[in-house]
């Protein structure tokens, strides 16, 4: 149901909250991103657009089977092809780059095996790089691939997570003793008692297929080792440039002064571009070996087997409730498969760990038990992808809540309202031990009810059922962790910064230049930093320029992950901007020989604070400060460039919350699901730009819907990917997607002045649960449920008993 026009986005949410700056006119306002106009004219600069002198191109020969011992590689013919520069094997790369083992100290017991940039004797998944071919052009390198002769002995592949730990199953890394990467148990106590006294118990096993990120720009990199000054520059489509700088230093034994990572335009990231891939290191090693820049751009076919995958969970869940609807306890058992290695440097234990932490998260029950097993298998490695555990935890929680609500005959929204941690109860601690600073479940549920016109929708549903039309309304309440402290990675020993910095400079003409360690992959980080800086200093946003994505020129920081750009990076910009404003006033005081106290920076000029009289335009202040220091008092030096850093240290994470509602129609003859509409009420604290948050939410929701209905990396029984191309792996398209209405509730975090929390992942967190609940609501008259995602027509027909 594509409505001709939707309610327009509210253009200004800034006035809903007390201002954080003196003359706040940009923060909270839907200001279009002027910085993207060049992208509409094809004038971006993505990595593949960069050409350098002496540039060579690498392609990788990747393992074609799930598990193999390499018995012979004959590279003579490939090397002899004109235009081929080098054909390089794993052992040769390993001489330059140290192997890594991705574990974290705070994930007790997590283990993995040493991993090298390229396979040496053995390849452990289809897609692992084995041979590198460098040539003058990519086409020539691909020509040479076909001349390689690689022989291998196929080894038994571990694919099924259910049997990965059984005694008869081969152990992928014998030195580890078994195929267990990580396990965790959590038990609050009282769970068995709660289930024993419950009036209703609902249980179900949920399955979540593997999917992958499919950034439209593939992973891309140019490694440029300059033998003259012994320095490495890496142009990278990446989310965390300082992290990669650090890893290149460590793996190649270089110093930070030798390594520069540059991230210009990045064509989508979603977590895919925050991991250190084996071929990242291999490409750098090749550049060092050859003393010239080497470009790697994954083609789409190799993206499907070499980009990280995510999910692949099997969760047995159950919920206990009392007659009056009070939720008494949750219990889950999660089994997840992560491929043959834990991914560097964030590890592959995090997603399962977050499922344990987040399940049941919105609710006030006290009893919870969870078991997690993370196992190795011979498939593409999995790691953190947008949402990281949230979509699974939310879908399981919310399906269980709906299941027990149906048993008790209580309306799903009413049951949620009765059980969520109330809005006046914060700060609070969830049953899993998570610390929740300030959330608004009740306000969001009420807003969702209003937005959706819930009672009318239910009435329509009833009426249509009489006519054989099966529509469903699915609700999902969610929490999302954002603004992480060092508790996420730093305490575990990973050198991943939880702090970020911003430098703000007044240029001589009154232009403001912001440099931030948080970069841009499309979310709008640069745009909101400009809005924050404009208000913090007191200039128009058109006068602000933002620079990101270069370890040589930006402050040190973590970059983009865990929905932290606005909350962490934005706070640093605000603080730096407010200090710069103070310094500008001090400079004005020196120039004008009057007290700073009676003046303010207002819309690009120094004005009298009481009567608004224009005293000094910023351009004049800049001119004097930079070019006529002779006219300033001897004991005064203008400091018109300010750097501030910010790390969130009050809580392990700052949680956000929201509610999503999905409206679907299920064709019970074909099993097809039509998405009629989707609503999201979100609370990311202070909204900096509602238009950007809206489309962040929508994009994330569509990715969540993708996983719920379409996307799955389908493996054959021999461990090879069956649908690793854009035609067979189903990415959501415009026609299948519904209009998505977004509404905002703002509960600012008190851990920062700005009060912003993250908004990038909540959409993905909530959509799978909302859609699954909507489908099951539509199927309710038939007394059947689906619990395996993606929910394909086949699975629906199977549930309905229409096919065997």
């Amino acid at each position: 149901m594509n409505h001709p026009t939707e309610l327009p986005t509210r253009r200004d949410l800034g006035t809903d909250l007390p201002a954080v700056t003196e003359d706040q006119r940009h923060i909270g306002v839907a200001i279009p991103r002027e910085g993207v106009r060049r992208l509409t004219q094809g004038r971006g600069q993505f990595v593949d657009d960069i050409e350098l002198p002496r540039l060579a191109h690498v392609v990788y020969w990747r393992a074609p089977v799930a598990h193999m011992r390499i018995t012979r590689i004959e590279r003579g013919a490939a090397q002899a092809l004109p235009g081929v520069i080098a054909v390089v094997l794993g052992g040769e790369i390993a001489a330059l780059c140290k192997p890594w083992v991705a574990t974290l100290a705070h994930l007790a017991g997590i283990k993995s095996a040493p991993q090298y940039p390229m396979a040496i004797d053995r390849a452990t998944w289809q897609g692992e790089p084995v041979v590198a071919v460098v040539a003058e052009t990519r086409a020539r390198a691909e020509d040479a691939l076909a001349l390689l002769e690689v022989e291998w002995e196929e080894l038994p592949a571990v694919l099924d997570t259910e049997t990965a730990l059984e005694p008869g199953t081969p152990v992928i890394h014998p030195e580890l003793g078994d195929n267990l990467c990580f396990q965790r148990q959590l038990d609050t106590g009282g769970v068995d008692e709660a289930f024993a006294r419950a009036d209703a118990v609902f249980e179900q096993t949920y399955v979540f297929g593997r999917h992958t990120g499919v950034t439209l720009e593939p992973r891309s990199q140019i490694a440029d080792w300059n033998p003259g000054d012994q320095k490495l520059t890496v142009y990278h489509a990446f989310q965390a440039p300082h992290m990669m700088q650090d890893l290149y230093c460590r793996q190649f034994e270089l110093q930070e002064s030798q390594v520069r990572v540059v991230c210009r335009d990045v064509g989508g990231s979603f977590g895919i571009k925050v991991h250190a891939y084996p071929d990242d290191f291999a490409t750098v090693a090749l550049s060092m070996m050859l003393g010239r820049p080497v470009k790697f751009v994954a083609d789409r076919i190799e993206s499907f087997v070499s980009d990280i995958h995510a999910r692949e969970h099997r969760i047995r869940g159950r919920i206990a409730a009392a007659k009056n609807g009070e939720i008494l306890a949750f219990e889950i058992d999660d089994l997840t498969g992560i491929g043959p290695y834990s991914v560097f440097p964030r590890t592959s234990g995090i997603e399962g760990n977050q499922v344990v932490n987040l399940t049941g998260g919105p609710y006030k029950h006290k009893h919870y038990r969870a078991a997690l097993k993370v196992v190795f298998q011979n498939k593409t490695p999995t790691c953190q992808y947008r949402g990281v555990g949230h979509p699974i935890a939310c879908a399981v929680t919310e399906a269980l809540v709906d299941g027990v609500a149906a048993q008790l005959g209580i309306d799903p929204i009413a049951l949620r309202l009765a059980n969520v941690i109330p809005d006046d109860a914060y700060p609070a601690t969830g049953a899993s031990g998570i610390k929740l600073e300030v959330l608004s479940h009740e306000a969001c549920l009420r807003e969702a009810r209003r937005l959706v016109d819930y009672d009318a929708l239910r009435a329509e549903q009833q009426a249509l059922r009489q006519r054989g039309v099966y529509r469903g309304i699915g609700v999902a309440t969610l929490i999302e962790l954002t603004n992480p402290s060092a508790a996420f990675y730093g305490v575990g020993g990973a050198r991943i910064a939880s702090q970020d910095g911003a430098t703000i400079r007044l240029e001589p003409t009154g232009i403001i230049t912001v440099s931030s360690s948080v970069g841009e992959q499309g979310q709008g980080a640069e745009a909101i930093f400009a809005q924050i800086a404009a208000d913090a200093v007191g200039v128009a946003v058109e006068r602000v320029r933002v620079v990101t994505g270069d370890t040589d020129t930006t402050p040190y920081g973590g970059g983009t992950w865990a929905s932290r750009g606005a909350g962490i990076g934005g706070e640093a910009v605000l603080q730096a901007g407010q200090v710069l404003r103070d310094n500008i006033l001090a400079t004005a005081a020196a120039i004008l020989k009057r007290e700073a106290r009676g003046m303010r920076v207002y819309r690009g000029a120094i004005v009298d604070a009481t009567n608004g009289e224009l005293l000094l335009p910023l351009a004049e202040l800049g001119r004097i400060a930079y070019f006529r220091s002779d006219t300033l008092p001897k004991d005064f030096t203008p400091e018109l460039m300010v750097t501030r850093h910010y790390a969130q240290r009050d809580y392990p994470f700052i949680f956000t919350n929201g509610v999503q509602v999905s409206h679907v129609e299920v064709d019970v003859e074909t099993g097809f699901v039509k998405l009629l509409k989707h609503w999201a009420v979100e609370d990311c604290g202070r909204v900096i730009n509602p238009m950007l948050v809206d489309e962040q939410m929508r994009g994330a929701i569509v990715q969540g819907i993708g996983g719920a209905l379409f996307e799955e990396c389908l493996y054959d029984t021999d461990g090879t990917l069956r649908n690793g191309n854009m035609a067979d792996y189903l990415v959501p398209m415009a026609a299948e997607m519904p209009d998505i209405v977004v509404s905002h509730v703002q509960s600012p975090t008190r851990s920062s002045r700005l009060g912003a929390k993250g908004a990038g992942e909540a959409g993905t967190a909530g959509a799978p649960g909302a859609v699954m609940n909507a489908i099951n609501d539509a199927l309710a008259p038939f007394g059947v449920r689906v619990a395996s995602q993606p929910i394909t027509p086949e699975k629906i027909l199977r549930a309905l008993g229409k096919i065997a």
Partner: protein
Amino acid sequence: MNTPDDTPKRRVSVQVNGTTFVREVECRRHLVDFLREDCGLKGSHLGCEHGVCGACSVRLDGEVVRGCLVLAVQADGRRVETVETATPSRRLKALQDAFVEYNALQCGYCTPGMLVAALDLVERRPQADRAQVRDWMSGNYCRCTGYHAIVDAVCAVLEQQRAGRFADEAATEAQR
């Protein structure tokens, strides 16, 4: 497989956004690689290189094609249009403006192809409603937005067109 010795080449002359490029190209070279590597026009992007994602969409003699499924030699003597033009038509300019105004792009990687598809729609289906816009735009993947804003932006330009905003511009590509 072609090796350098047996890779045939042809001289082609292609008019791209009004400028004629004469180049010697391998016959196996795709149009999008020709634009990016031989003409230096990096605005058409490679998303899948197998004709699905739409990021490399350009117009060839007025018809939308996938730059990764057409060979450069097939474009010999023909006219290619991309969003990289220095002289956008009023409709293209309006679409570019609307994409900014409605935040219809995030990373911008799909945007050049998306705009080419949208321009074709605006010219050929002036009466399209929201559902038809969604259908038409389904040949182009966007992984960042939820498509909603893209649909909003295209619908806004269709409305401008129906209000007569482009009435004074010369015949559109589709009508030529």
